[in-house]
């Protein structure tokens, strides 16, 4: 009864203010719960600060520069000069606007914001270490916890992220000048997006990839359109090589890559670089959380297994976003954040979206959702597909961007739409229509019979659906 050290408590503790965490916090607060959100860095997480938003800003900036400089065909002659520092501060302005917006949204929703690094002390207790020497720490008891600590880039041996000259994707979004020679290790979507940015800004970009394909995980005909376009922008690809080491020589970094399979390539290669970007993937941030103290289990890769309600093995602890497993997509994290908050509030929420769209913002863009033809067959579904090439789209022609296609996959028997792959202009936007159709249980005819605006790229979606039924107008079926 003697009041000594008062331990504060909260209904819901959210760790991490990225797109999973802040959405969870706001939704939980909307549902009348007392919510505390702990963030050790900037609000918005990797997405806003080191990922989606800054990279898309630079993609757009570099796109403008590149398009303006290559529009002779349209009768436009320009020789744009890029001041990268100005483009970077424009980008930083956007990031600042969005991160402060998140802080305001959280505050307005009544979320208690705490700055610091969280570490579990027990199943229901967390220690928050404040930043800065002598700032101390505090303990917080919680009824429920949502872990949304996200992920960080994977480092490879011999290539520490020290920014000089080795950088992670975060470093590559903050270059002060355009590197004359940029070597990118990894041809996944982060590597390919940044290859797009810097090749358009004038860097001499080389990409090393252990596998024999760019964008592993995407279908060959989708990935090859992006690879070919990148090659035309001047990107050099070295497939089947693994980055081994680097050394400094005459003020330049020289990277040595060794064949992944000696039967395929018999000699090492050396690449000179101003900057080396290592983009070989990301791993979940679960190792610094003291997660054992809470009794939460992780798998071999450090991911936290969760059920359809985003619950971990502990009834009262939830995990959302990158820490909860692949795919690492901001919108997946946000959706899971909502579900976790609603489950805590007693609502019958569950992660039961049927289609999770994904986009790659290369040139041209890729948008995918649901199953590929091959995956459908593996699932025992007899697939039927329909395609439409952007070459045949009036809108694509007038935009001078005719690479790529829309492909829709449906179950042959029921004609129900189960997936789509789009590569081409605005693929990231076009994919949303098909995601909605899959969610609603639509059939090919539902898309085909929906009147689409002319002249737009979305007509390609309608034509692809009609093609699957043998009824496309603007192509042979």
């Amino acid at each position, binding site marked *: 009864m003697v009041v000594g050290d008062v331990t504060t408590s909260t209904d819901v503790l959210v760790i991490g203010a990225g797109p999973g965490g802040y959405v969870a916090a706001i939704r939980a607060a909307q549902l009348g719960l007392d919510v505390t959100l702990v963030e050790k860095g900037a609000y918005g997480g990797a997405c806003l600060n080191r990922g989606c938003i800054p990279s898309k800003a630079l993609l757009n900036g570099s796109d403008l520069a590149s398009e303006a400089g290559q529009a002779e065909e349209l009768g436009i002659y320009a020789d744009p000069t890029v001041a990268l520092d100005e483009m970077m501060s424009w980008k930083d302005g956007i990031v600042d606007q969005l991160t402060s917006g998140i802080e305001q949204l959280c505050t307005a929703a009544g979320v208690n914001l705490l700055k610091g690094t969280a570490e579990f002390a027990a199943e229901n207790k967390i220690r928050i270490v404040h930043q800065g020497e002598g700032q101390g720490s505090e303990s917080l008891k919680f009824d429920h916890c949502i872990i949304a600590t996200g992920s960080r880039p994977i480092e490879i041996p011999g290539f520490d992220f020290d920014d000089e000259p080795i950088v992670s994707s975060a470093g590559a979004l903050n270059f002060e000048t355009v590197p004359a020679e940029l070597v990118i290790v990894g041809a996944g979507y982060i590597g390919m997006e940044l290859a797009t940015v810097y090749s358009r800004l004038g860097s001499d970009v080389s990409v090393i990839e252990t596998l024999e394909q760019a964008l592993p995980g995407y279908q060959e005909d989708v990935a090859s359109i992006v690879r070919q376009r990148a090659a035309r922008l001047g990107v050099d690809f070295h497939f089947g090589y693994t980055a081994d080491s680097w050394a400094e020589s005459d003020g330049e970094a020289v990277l040595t890559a060794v064949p992944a399979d000696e039967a395929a390539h018999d000699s090492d290669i050396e690449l000179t670089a101003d900057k080396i970007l290592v983009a070989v993937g990301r791993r979940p941030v679960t190792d610094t959380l003291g997660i054992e103290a809470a009794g939460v289990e992780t798998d071999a890769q450090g991911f936290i297994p*969760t059920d359809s309600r985003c619950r971990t093995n502990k009834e009262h602890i939830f995990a959302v976003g990158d820490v909860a497993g*692949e795919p690492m997509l901001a919108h997946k994290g946000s959706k899971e954040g909502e579900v976790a908050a609603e489950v805590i509030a*007693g609502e019958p929420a569950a992660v039961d979206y049927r289609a999770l769209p994904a986009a790659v913002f290369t040139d041209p863009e890729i948008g*995918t959702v649901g199953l*590929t033809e091959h*995956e459908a067959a593996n699932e025992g579904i007899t697939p039927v597909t329909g395609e439409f090439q952007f070459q045949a789209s009036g809108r694509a022609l007038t935009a001078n961007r005719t690479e790529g296609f829309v492909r829709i996959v449906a179950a042959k028997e029921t004609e129900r739409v189960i997936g789509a792959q789009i590569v081409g202009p605005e693929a990231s936007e076009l994919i949303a229509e098909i995601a909605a159709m899959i969610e609603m*249980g639509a059939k090919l005819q539902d898309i085909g019979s929906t009147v689409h605006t002319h002249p737009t790229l979305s007509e390609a979606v309608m034509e692809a659906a009609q093609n699957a039924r043998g009824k496309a107008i603007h192509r042979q079926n």
Partner: protein
Amino acid sequence: MVREFELPDVGEGVAEGELLRWRVAPGDAVSEDQPVAEVETDKAVVDVPSPVDGVVEELRAAEGETVPVGDVIIVFRVEGEDEPDGTETPADDATADSGHQTDDEAPTQPAEETQSEPAVTQHVQVAASPSVRRLARELGVDISSIADSSPGRITESDVRAYANTDSHSSTQAQSNQRTAAAKQQKQQATSTQSVSPVQARKTADRETTVAVPKTRHVAAEEGVDLDNIPTDERKDGEPFVTLEAVREYAEAQQQAQKKDQEAVAERAAADEPARPESRTPYNGIRQTIGAAMTESKYTAPHVTHQDEVDVTALVDARSTLRQEAEEHDIRLTYMPFVMKACAAALQENPQVNISLDEANEEIVEKEYYNIGVATATDAGLLVPVVEDVDAKGLLEVASETNEKTQRARERSLSPEEMRGGTFTISNIGGIGGEYGTPIINQPESAILALGEIKKKPRVVEADGEETIEPRHVMTLSLSFDHRVLDGADAARFTNSIQKYLRNPNLLLLE
């Protein structure tokens, strides 16, 4: 090659599980990690993944069966001898297709990134919009079970109709409840349990029904709703109900109602003879008191500090003064002394004479001393307030207290006369008992309960000698709001009260 697969330990140390549903049928090709069965343990419903790429040869357990961990539940034929292509099309196309019709699931991302997250990928082939799928969860219905019988698009009314007829719904709803917050649990339980036998009987609950005029007429006469009558027939794409169906349905309804009535009558007859008891409505003052007590008890963390005081001197003083008082027609009890003592103690301990203004997040310290006296009445507990006790003489306090407590018993106190107190005294001793835990009369932050004054042996020290003597002793139970007062505050305050009660002469100085 044939591979037997035993039910694995699907949870932490779970010994058995109920096999809810097979998600594959013999002949189905399966790939590694593809869910093959749903098993419910006492902890959760989990998907059991296939350990191999292969073809389902045999299912060894039935749906609904409880299987011990370690029992073989499924036999796979794995790539080898008689399956040249392993995972290729199974022998019986039709079986495989119909199996996949409802059970298939699809990863929602590029294949190599696929995680085994059961519900993310479940029921991909069930055609229903997200709002309908959510409704199904709210009603505790497994939407894929509806899809088993309705190959088309599942609508809101399909789900509602199924929820009303499905016996699974209650178990499913219970598992929902486990995941819900406590209050929500209560609501859900109420809503699922309130499904009466009549409602649970098979009804259709459609939005539109086609029927000929005569059928409609008969339905109206029989008092049945056409939309509730099950039918497989359709006309112009709409559900169609015949005259026969109406008669059948009406008959079934009547029978069912009769059965229900009989069952109710039987239960009533079987009941024990009623025990004598009576009921009075919980309303009025009783309810108001109840609400106030509950509110106080559960907002202010109550802590009760208990002590006793030797009031032998007070007993003497009172018996002396009582005569004096009676000449003024005033009955002098101990209460006015305690009230004066409390007022004096509050002046000495201003930290107790406060209230917490939660709305404005302020602690309000009062510089006036209005003391409430908890008074038992026929209607319940009322608390008349005597204002400015510090400024009034003992007899004045006595007179006003007597007058107000009397009117409280007569229920003629105005509400104003029960407001504005800064501290309350409750006298449990009048009836008996030593210690109690009084509930704070909010917005005050403390309340004192007085025990009976009893003669007890006490050690008395006089002229350096200790003797045991019979003394008059009263107990004090002080409950305080631990949000704003600490134990030390309560102890100090109680010490002050004791000081005045032990030596009532001090009150003369007040």
